[in-house]
């Protein structure tokens, strides 16, 4: 019996996870083809090096979320299965006007007792709103809390202003949007993810890109780099066709199953042919297209001059509307240089995307508080990575579709076309693994039940 032909559109973490899981789950022979528009697989998981020194830094996904303190964590499990060493990341410092606010004690001492009381009250409220277990399950819930309240209403209630500013700066890079554009639940979740009882953070020692490289090395699929998919439709014989472009040529191939694992921003670039399918995808995109933007500026310094005051793996800065500053060099115990990475999020990121690299590097250097040290004196090299619209998340209050519906937009005429993406869960790498796992399990079950299947 001929193997079932399966196409995966997109060679990012979603596509690679789907391929890896499918190969492990399939009870019959399958032939996988992965289409990737770029010259590398891995998508937003990217660990390049500087030109002037062999020093790595994270240009995309900076960290992974660790839910294992609460319950099973499939991503942690997958990382362990792939044999990748990890290290925890931690940091609680917020730099406000050149003042390091590292702990609740600092909030009390430097922002005042009222701010401290407001912080504790906010913390109480967040913890009362969501238990760690509910926090863990929130990505799977078919329905959000239903509240139409936006997070800015919660933030407006925080007094004095110093406390509000502290919290906004702390949350901004996680939200990747403005409080007025997200829900109370999502905003509080972004606060709670700083609490180790809810979640931890970790990275892969030696670079996060090792994860996608390890996946790519273990997948037997045929990977077609620099071959973007232009259109998908159904043939007269009942299979699905995929039209791609390679070196100016248009190629069309037929598949039994097609899995589209593209970021939300790239989904409209593919033409879905067929009345029902086109309408379903349009509705899907309209529902899920809520782009959030990131911009990463990473600078190589001669030495980690800031460590005298801040030693955290990351800390928050009240510049660029609130950004997260990663001490990339803290991830490598043998690092001889200092590397700081600015993660600018939301509107500030979108606006900054238009600026030149040099301008952005200069702005980043200017944003460093004077008390940390003279960044310009230690400057070696700056790199910029723009991720506009790279993430998409439903604004607060919007209903989440049932999990199956999210992953199979048109079940009547195209039951063999699936979608995978982080935006279908919580817009994280954990979410994309959940999504890939759901689709891989589903496709594997259909393979077993279908003609020639074991069942």
């Amino acid at each position, binding site marked *: 019996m001929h193997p079932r032909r399966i196409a995966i559109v997109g060679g990012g973490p979603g596509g690679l996870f789907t391929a890896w899981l499918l190969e492990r789950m399939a009870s019959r022979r399958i032939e996988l083809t992965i289409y990737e528009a770029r010259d590398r697989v891995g998508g937003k998981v990217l660990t390049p090096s500087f030109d002037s020194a062999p020093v790595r830094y994270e240009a995309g996904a900076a960290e992974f979320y660790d839910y294992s303190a609460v319950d099973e964590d499939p991503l942690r499990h997958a990382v362990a299965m792939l044999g990748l060493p990890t290290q925890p990341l931690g940091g*609680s*410092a917020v730099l406000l006007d050149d003042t*390091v606010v*590292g*702990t*609740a*004690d*600092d*909030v009390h*001492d430097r922002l005042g007792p009222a701010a401290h009381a407001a*912080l*504790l009250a906010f*913390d109480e409220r967040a913890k009362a709103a969501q238990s760690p277990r509910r926090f863990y399950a929130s990505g799977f819930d078919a329905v959000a809390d239903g509240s139409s309240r936006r997070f800015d209403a919660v933030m407006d209630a925080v007094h004095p202003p110093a406390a509000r500013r502290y919290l906004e700066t702390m949350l901004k890079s996680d939200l990747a949007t403005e409080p007025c554009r997200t829900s109370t639940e999502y905003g509080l979740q972004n606060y709670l993810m*700083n*609490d*180790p*009882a809810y979640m931890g953070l970790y990275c892969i020692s030696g670079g996060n890109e090792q994860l996608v490289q390890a996946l790519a090395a273990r997948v037997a699929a045929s990977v077609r780099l620099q071959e973007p998919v232009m259109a998908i439709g159904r043939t007269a014989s009942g299979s699905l066709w995929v039209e791609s472009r390679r070196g100016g040529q248009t190629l069309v191939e037929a598949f039994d199953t097609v899995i589209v694992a593209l970021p939300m921003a790239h989904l409209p670039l593919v033409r879905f042919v067929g009345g029902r399918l086109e309408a379903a995808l349009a509705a899907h995109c309209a529902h899920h297209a809520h782009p959030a933007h990131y911009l990463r500026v990473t600078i190589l310094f001669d030495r980690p001059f800031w460590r005298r*005051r*801040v*030693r955290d793996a990351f800390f928050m800065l009240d510049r660029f509307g609130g950004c997260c500053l990663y001490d990339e060099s803290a991830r490598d115990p043998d690092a001889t240089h200092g590397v700081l990475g600015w993660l600018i999020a939301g509107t500030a990121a979108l606006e900054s995307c238009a600026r030149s690299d040099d301008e952005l590097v200069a702005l980043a250097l200017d944003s460093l508080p004077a*008390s940390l040290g003279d960044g310009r004196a230690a400057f070696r090299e700056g790199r910029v990575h723009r991720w506009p619209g790279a993430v998409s998340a439903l604004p607060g209050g919007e209903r989440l579709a049932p999990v199956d519906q999210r992953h199979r937009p048109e079940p009547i005429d195209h039951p063999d076309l699936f979608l995978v993406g982080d935006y279908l869960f919580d817009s994280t790498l954990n979410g994309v693994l959940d999504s890939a796992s759901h689709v891989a399990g589903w496709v594997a079950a259909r393979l077993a039940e279908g003609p020639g299947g074991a069942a």
Partner: protein
Amino acid sequence: MIRRDAPMDGNGQPVRHDGSGQEVLGQVRVEEVPVDDAVLELVVLPAADADGTRDGEGQEAAALAWVAACRTDTPPVQVPLYGTTVIWSPSRAAILAPHAALVAVREALLDFARCDAALRRLEGEAGLLLGRLDEDAPCAVEFDERHIERQASLEERFRRSVRLRADLADLAPAVLRPPVHPPTLAAQLGERLRERTRLADRLEFVQAKADVLDRVYDLCAQRVGDFAIARRHLRLEWVIIVLLAAELVVLLVEVLAGLGTTPTP
């Protein structure tokens, strides 16, 4: 708790820094705080200013030298955090912190030191017991007359392995204490000391050793108990056999004596 004046040098001399002749730390109070079954020498130094921008590097180096001078197997662990520095080794520790944070940081350090000392003691105990495991393991499979002399030592080690397990259970909540949120300086320092000294991992390793010890000595205890019961039963059986044999001999002699006196026809 004992307080005494002591120089800041392992050799009993005041610590001097960078050859300038300036006494950096001078005469400071050294507390001797009992932690588990050990004693921790503790020095608490208020920082010059609350922002951590004091000229504290010299003071920090002197404190590090004093802590390192105690010559333990464990090199000193130095945790600087937001203007506070804690330097710790199993027998000496120093705190350099803003005045307001001193009490809380001191408590956090002592709390950690108690956990570490207790865990260190249990690691030693587990090591000692594991050293005897090869010798005792055969008794977990078979215990008979040949091993009877080892019964007391097996019972002793069974008791110690149970005690080890109980102590570990007692210690685990302190070692695996969930992190405090929102984080306080003292809690963060405590957590970082726990992380740096791998308390949770070490606890897990000792627990794994305790699992092995449990398994072996539990079986040994069962075998010893079974043997004791079997021996009691065996003794009773033999006593009955002996009594029956004696009765048989008496009967036999009676019968034979009767035969001897029967007149032959």
